[in-house]
């Protein structure tokens, strides 16, 4: 990657244009409604624009560049056929009458059926634009269910201490208070700690299964019974759906509401932070409420839903059963190959991801140092410092689309870094060295924010 330090504003030269519009002599009539402040946008030519953004892209790492073992992100390969089929739907206005968009309806119907089949839920809403958005929508549905039964007392939701930050944040946005349930030494939700928390003020519980440590919550049957008994509902955070793809259905485990991350489990590209899609599925008893929350402007991110649809078609009945197991196989393989040089706090068979708690022999080298050094070797770092249960957490999720050679190369590099930590820790403290920039001063960025040009 080459360091390219221009911003588009710095390429601006008076009078340069790149737009393509017919001549227009229309003078807007005088009015106090028009803008008085001059509009200051870059004046550049088309080649300027193309070169600039092409050079910017070359300072970026993507799944197409290399391996991204990011736990909880499921950075699997993004098939290009998914991209190809989208543009034939580009010209459809979202408010066009139904009879003119029968093909669109057919896509939504197919996806509703396919996702229901894969998850064991009855029907889906496709309005949410991301996982956190789906969580919020799911919690809204949970509340609607209780409201419909005249039950206004259920203002709390239970969240495990290992939960992703979006869980409590979504609950707060939905007007619910959080009650935290603790995890045991083995990383699983402590059922004994859960029992006293249950009562008539509990709307439900949000769970990730496998959890953020990559461990299957094997007490889920008992948890489901207990929560249902107290009148609450079970919400499934689908961020960790990948290892269950083709193996287990959340609906069969007793979950009432769930979201999926199409940009994780269903291969749609991450785009540098979106667009994604977070469809929410519900069990039969919640279907009447599905269309109540209007959480986005039109019909959800249809372009993303199309891509996921292509993925499901290409994967098909035969291959869907391999997705989860291969992801799980890859994760366990890396775990077993590195547990001698990295601290493995929970030595159980994991699912699609697992957590190391720093180096076995840190020698003053932190997880951040390890992550930054990995960048030098051409890998993206794993998820670091999450979950909060382990202070030097390194969460690794390889997904099922990586070859054995890639996994072995990653293992070799992680071993090399462990050796470097013992022999030359300073090299790691000052990493990365081979990237366009080195570690930035984040304190200055937060104390003296410069947020625009």
């Amino acid at each position, binding site marked *: 990657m080459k360091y390219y330090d221009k911003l588009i504003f710095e390429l601006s030269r008076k009078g340069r244009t790149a737009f393509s519009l017919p001549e227009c002599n229309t003078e807007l009539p005088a009015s106090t409604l028009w803008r008085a402040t001059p509009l200051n946008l870059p004046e550049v030519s088309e080649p300027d624009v193309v070169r600039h953004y092409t050079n910017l892209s070359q300072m970026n790492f993507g799944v197409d560049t290399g391996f991204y073992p990011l736990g909880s992100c499921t950075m699997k390969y993004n098939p290009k056929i998914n991209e190809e089929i989208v543009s034939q739907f580009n010209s459809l206005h979202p408010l066009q009458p139904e009879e003119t968009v029968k093909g669109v309806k057919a896509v939504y119907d197919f996806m509703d059926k396919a996702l229901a089949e894969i998850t064991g839920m009855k029907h889906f809403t496709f309005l949410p634009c991301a996982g956190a958005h789906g969580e919020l929508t799911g919690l809204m549905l949970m509340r609607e269910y209780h409201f419909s039964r005249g039950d206004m007392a259920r203002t709390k939701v239970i969240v495990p201490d290992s939960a992703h930050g979006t869980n409590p944040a979504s609950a707060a946005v939905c007007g619910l208070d959080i009650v935290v349930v603790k995890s045991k030494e083995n990383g699983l939700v402590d059922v004994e700690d859960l029992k006293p928390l249950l009562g008539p003020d509990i709307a439900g519980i949000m769970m990730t299964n496998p959890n953020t440590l990559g461990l299957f919550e094997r007490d889920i049957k008992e948890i489901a019974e207990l929560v249902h008994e107290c009148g609450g509902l079970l919400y499934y955070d689908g961020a960790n759906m990948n290892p269950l793809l083709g193996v287990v259905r959340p609906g069969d485990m007793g979950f009432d509401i769930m979201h999926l991350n199409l940009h994780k489990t269903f291969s749609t590209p991450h785009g540098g932070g979106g667009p994604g899609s977070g469809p929410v599925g519900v069990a039969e008893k919640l279907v009447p409420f599905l269309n109540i929350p209007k959480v986005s402007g039109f019909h959800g991110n249809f372009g993303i839903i199309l891509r996921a649809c292509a993925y499901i078609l290409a994967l098909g009945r035969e291959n869907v059963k391999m997705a989860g197991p291969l992801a799980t196989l890859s994760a366990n393989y890396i775990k077993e190959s590195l547990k001698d040089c990295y601290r493995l706090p929970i030595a159980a068979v994991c699912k699609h991801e697992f957590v190391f708690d720093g180096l076995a022999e840190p020698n003053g080298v932190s997880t951040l140092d390890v992550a930054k050094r990995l960048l030098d070797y051409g890998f993206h770092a794993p998820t670091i410092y999450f979950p909060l249960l382990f202070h030097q957490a390194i969460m690794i999720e390889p997904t099922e689309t990586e070859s054995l050679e890639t996994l072995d190369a990653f293992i070799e590099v992680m071993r090399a870094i462990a050796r470097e930590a013992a022999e030359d820790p300073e090299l790691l403290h000052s990493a990365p060295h081979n990237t366009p920039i080195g570690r930035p001063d984040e*304190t200055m*960025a937060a*104390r003296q924010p410069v947020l625009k040009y």
Partner: protein
Amino acid sequence: MSKVIEGLLYSESHEWVKVEDGVAVIGVSDYAQAEMGDITYVDLPSEGDEVTAGEEFGALESVKASSELYSPVSGEVVAVNEELEAAPERVNEDAYGAWIIKVRMSDESELEALMDATAYSAIAK
């Protein structure tokens, strides 16, 4: 070992209190600022706000974390250290000099629940 100053009272959540004429001057201990790392922002209440002993009145933010501030006493906020808006690092530089809020106490007996320097030293290692 973090610095602990005699003559101040301390809460379990690492705030310190200096009493001046019925007004509690409140800040965070040296231990707290060291735990946070480089402080990038102090989320302050406004003058006139009511605070309650044991409840949040603001927060400290660093690059990667945020930590709530809990009021050791109840009462009305009579002053807020506005210098911290532009220079939050003052808390790192001088935890005991960089006061955060001043509260006119509604119930001075709440001070009895706080620790003295010796007792606090035991938990602020």
